[in-house]
């Protein structure tokens, strides 16, 4: 129960248009007040439990994303917020875009929408909490994602 009562999130922006980021920040405002669930936007991956990713992954940001994922101590869950983070969105066939976050790191929950409403993001965080508890119970560790050099797109 202890994990579900104090989920600390780290918000990672990988090439987002800032639409989803505004909505993530809106969750922390007095109107939605995510802190009533114990949610804190913690800023450092070393103390985070939930990784909230916005935006589609591109070749510039892929290593940053992997690095931050590796730095979060277990148990951890990844929440993909928005259409871009879930599938690549309208940017899916851009020459520099790899696709959704799940192409790079394992994603546990998706929040669809362009951009998703704050209620939907909060709902996603609450859904992620039960996955977090299951991971703790089953002692499931996130695999370390290997960093590569500057990857070159196959269609370049």
């Amino acid at each position, binding site marked *: 129960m*202890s*994990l579900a*009562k*104090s989920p600390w999130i780290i*918000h990672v922006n990988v090439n987002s248009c800032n639409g989803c980021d505004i909505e993530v920040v809106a969750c922390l405002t*007095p109107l939605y*007040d995510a*802190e*009533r*669930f*114990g949610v*804190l*936007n*913690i*800023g*450092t991956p*070393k*103390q985070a*439990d939930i990784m909230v990713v916005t935006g589609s992954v591109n070749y510039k940001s892929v290593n940053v994303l992997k690095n931050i994922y590796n*730095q979060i*101590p*277990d*148990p951890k869950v990844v929440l993909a917020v928005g259409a871009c983070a879930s599938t690549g969105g309208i940017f899916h066939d851009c020459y520099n875009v790899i696709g959704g976050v799940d192409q790079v790191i394992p994603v546990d929950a998706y929040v669809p929408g362009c951009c998703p409403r704050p209620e939907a993001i909060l709902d996603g965080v609450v859904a992620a909490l039960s996955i977090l508890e299951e991971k*703790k119970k089953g002692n499931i560790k996130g695999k370390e994602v290997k960093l590569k050099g500057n990857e070159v797109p196959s269609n370049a």
Partner: protein
Amino acid sequence: MNNILLAVLVLIGAPIIGCLASGVDRKITARLQGRVGPPLLQPYYDVKKLLSKDNMVVNASQNFYAVVYLVFIILSLLMLVFEQDFLMIIFVYTVASVALIVGGMSTGSPYARVGSSREIMAILSYEPVLILYALAIYLLTGTFKLSALLDKSSPLLMYTPLIFIAMIVVLNIKLKKSPFDYSTSHHGHQELVKGMTTEYSGPGFATIEIAHFYEYVFLTGLIFLFWASNPIIGVLIGIIAYLLVIVIDNITARVYWQWMLKLSWSVLLIISIVNIAFLYVSGAQLA
């Protein structure tokens, strides 16, 4: 036997009080911002969660410094409860602060380093005021031993009102509340990230949080000494000072560390010295 019982009581009771104080802080902060806020026991849930997380460190000695910080905070609190030498308490307390700084420096993260060097500036600015507080106690009772102060029947506050004002600001600096929250902040999404504690995770960070609970009690204990002759009024003054610090935290923005140094070395130091000079010239003794 009685002493051991008291020590155990302090070891168990202080973190509970500190945890509730921290919860009240978050609740009041939320209400002042028009939010519902987390449950009162949220700091307890946080610590419980941190203890169940993986221990991820960047070097072998990092968590050792966190434990040193905890041990010396507990030691200074116990020395305060057992009415030991006040000067010694200040020095033991400084060792605890230094352990946290060295721990932050050892991680090599730029945020931790910036936070640590700012905390050194904080020590530089509040330490003279604490020493003058100790000096005032010496002038009034003839000894640095707190047991002599607690035997007196008249309150210290009547003779040291200016040092009391200075101590409120010291409380603000030491609790790392705004406008002096620049070494480590509760708001991790800002430019400093988490300052000194950026690289701590899981149990190591939980140790620091528990040490903070003890520190809350220790620092309000220093305020309690101003009216130690009547424990009820003493505790009341401690609580009022703590609530005042929370309100100041919410109505001010973070300042440069230079501003704090100027404030403490000009205003706080001068009013403390005026207070000391008055005590010295009048030759007043605590009844």
